[in-house]
């Protein structure tokens, strides 16, 4: 597979060179499957196989781009895309800074996050997984909803500067399951993500749901008054919050554009709880590992918060070019955020419930619809189900 993709990129590179273009060519392929459940039935079973090409042409300070969802057998259309790019380039406006043209120093082939077994998952296996997680939890009143999505993503890049190619392939799966009671009007969620087939654990998800359903069916419902509470955020809620706060607060572009709640002089300062240690760690294959960014910069572990001290801003190439900074390998679709565990072992919701406590706490597993009210204050809103 990689040979076909690399051959295509080499042909397109040669075409671009023949047209006198200085260009970056990116190949993106998604082969994805989604089984969606609603009201305890499969409401949709779908798959998509899409190949897209992104071209960026550079001419000094001018830059234009062209994207296409491509028919993989139609090389002529792909060439036409380069023609369109060449037509656009003279009409572009020069930037006020020099954009970096990617020059790859070596070939990169990174398939650490690809699992052939997950890529080959069948409709029957997706259905069996959902049947297991639902187990005996459904009834006339309690209905199952959810999605099982999985797929393979392939990304590859070449620039006209030389023949080096960057090639990345990964698999991932995401399961969301919701059980809802029509009469009692509650919903409970459980989620699971997987990078390889062996990560999928339908029985584990079933156990989480069973525990929640038991409490929602047997415990008395309580309407909480508005006020301040001690809150425990589940892993998904913590990840959501960490993602939005790093995006708005810890990127160099946000800093220079006035969006960040952090300032340049905050680097090294104790601004968060000393219990927080957060790293962008591309070694972690489970969270979109990629060992080079789009400009060929090596991706390394990048500490963001160490024992509560903010460490450094992440600089993508364009922001670094514009503001005279050094890029940090962050021209990627996804960062790989890792927050270290702490001193307490809480592997499951059951463990959390069994912990000693001297007051009632709110457990928030997921945050729905988070949004930024005031980025410079780091103020966000969201709701829990």
């Amino acid at each position, binding site marked *: 597979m990689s040979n076909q993709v690399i051959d295509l990129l080499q042909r397109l590179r040669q075409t671009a060179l023949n047209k006198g273009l200085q260009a970056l060519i990116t190949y993106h392929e998604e082969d994805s499957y989604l089984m969606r459940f609603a009201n305890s*039935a499969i409401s949709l079973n779908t798959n998509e196989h*899409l190949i897209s090409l992104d071209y960026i042409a550079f001419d000094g300070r001018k830059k*234009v781009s062209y994207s296409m969802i491509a*028919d993989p057998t139609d090389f002529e259309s792909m060439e036409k895309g380069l023609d369109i790019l060449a037509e656009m380039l003279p009409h*572009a406006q020069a930037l006020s800074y020099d954009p970096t043209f990617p020059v790859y120093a070596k070939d990169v082939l990174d398939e650490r996050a690809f699992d052939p077994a997950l890529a080959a998952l069948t409709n029957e296996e997706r259905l069996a997984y959902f049947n297991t997680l639902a187990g005996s939890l459904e009834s006339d009143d309690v209905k199952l909803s959810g999605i099982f999505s999985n797929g393979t993503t392939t990304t590859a890049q070449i620039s006209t500067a030389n023949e080096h190619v960057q090639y990345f392939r990964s698999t991932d799966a995401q399961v969301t399951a919701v059980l809802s009671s029509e009469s009692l009007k509650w919903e409970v969620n459980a989620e699971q993500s997987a990078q390889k087939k062996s990560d999928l654990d339908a029985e584990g998800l079933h156990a989480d749901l069973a525990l929640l359903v038991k409490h929602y069916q047997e415990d008395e419902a309580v309407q909480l008054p508005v006020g301040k509470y001690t809150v425990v955020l589940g892993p998904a809620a913590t990840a959501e919050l960490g993602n939005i706060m790093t995006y708005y607060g810890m990127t160099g572009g946000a800093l220079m554009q*006035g*969006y960040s709640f952090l300032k340049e002089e905050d680097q090294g300062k104790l601004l968060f709880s000393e219990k927080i240690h957060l790293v962008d760690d591309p070694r972690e294959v489970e969270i979109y590992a990629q060992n080079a960014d789009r400009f060929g910069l090596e991706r390394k572990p990048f500490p963001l918060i160490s024992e509560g001290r903010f460490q450094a801003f992440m600089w993508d190439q364009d922001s670094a070019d514009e503001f005279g900074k050094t890029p940090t390998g962050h021209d990627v679709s996804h960062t790989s955020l890792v927050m270290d565990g702490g001193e307490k072992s809480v592997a499951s919701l059951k463990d959390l419930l069994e912990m000693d406590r001297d007051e009632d706490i709110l457990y928030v597993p997921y945050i*729905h619809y988070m949004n930024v009210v005031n980025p410079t204050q780091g103020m966000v809103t969201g709701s829990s189900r």
Partner: protein
Amino acid sequence: MREKIKEQIDLLKAKGAHYVDARWYPREDSNFLFMWNGNLKENNASSQSGMGVRVLYNGAWGFSASSDLTNPNAIFDRAFDNARIAAERVTFPIRLAEKEAITGSFTSPNQVDPFTVGLDQKVAFLQKMDAALNQTGVIQRFGMLEFVRKQIIFLDSEGSEIEKNIIEVFASIHAVGIDKDGGMQRRKYSPGRTGPTRGWESINETDFLANAERIVSELNQVLVAEDAPNGKMSVILLNGIMFLQTHETIGHALELDRILGYELSFAGGSFVRLEDFGKLRYGSEKLTARANALEPNSPGSFGFDDDGVPAQDNLLIDKGILVGAITGRQMVEEANAKAKKQIFEGSSGANRATSFYRVPIERMTNINIDPGTDGSLEDIIANTKYGVVLDGDKSWSIGSNREQFHFACDIGWLVEDGQKKQVVKNPTYRGETLPFYNSLSAVGDESTWNVHYVENCGKGAPNQIMQLGHGVPVCRFDNVQVGE
């Protein structure tokens, strides 16, 4: 290609499919330009083509899509196989509401195809806007132009054959500053409906320049303003926030797939129940809302939905009472069966897909609030004892069943004893949907009503982004929690 599609549809029918449809996109083009502080950061063109096939077999849907059209049979076969598997777990066999076989076409109203306009002209427009925004107090300024042109051929096993040629134009300008307390503030202008057509001619330079001056002036007032007050008071929502209030707490709440639980695992559900139709007092008698896909010149008007149902104008809320929903062919059948009575007479023609590679789902068309009889904005302010006038969609968080909400706005003006006073910054308000709409105490007349475009409504798994509109007047709500 049309003949090949018809052959495949007939073939799957012969194999036992109850229904088959195909949406073939021979070509979809888009053009996006983004200028930030004078730098043309994005100058992108894109194109796509492909086909999506939907098959109903033994009461279950299968869907498949591909950009590879060298062997369209493979797409049909995959969709059929997907439906066969889905049919193994069916609790309510899918049925589709009746519709006539339709041969028709729709073309978006436009005079100048934006794809015939040179890049130089588009860049020059953004440069002018950038220069207009480059004033004291503005630390970040940006302008966007987005154009989409797509051809969609729809064929189904019931004999429908529809061609749509759609052009979309979206433009906006933004000004950002830092206030006296170090907080980021912004104002933006994104024109609503300015005329009968939406080609390049709708990019009205004079209008944009006037609004650039306005938003810079308003931004500078916000930068030195005090915070909005906290407490319960009247809020007077201008178009720039009323559209979003309508979108989030009427539009999404009344999508029938959400009401029936089809979006629980992603976008969420709705507090509305089937038994509520015809009875639930959603708002005060001043509230009349409709889904009007016949509204001239709006992205929420598209001729025929992706079930092949003609566009319609339907009441959703009539003088405060819930009477309708946003529906497609599948959901109305299921809702009527579950309610054991006929709530819906047929599809309201609102099943739409964002692209050939996504399946159609219930989407808003133009979800409008009818203008009222409480006069102009000035009249409403004159009749307000204490409150704030609010504008600008800064931030929003909505309960997953749309039962409560929190909005932050870009700007507010204090109102005391019928007088519009000084600008206030960081205004927010929150509420619960039904009490909020029941506190609707004034609805502006035609002079306050305009169609606001939405270019990025997200819903569905896999996710889909849809374009639509909201025709809304200025509205006043009383006893609303402001601040916090």
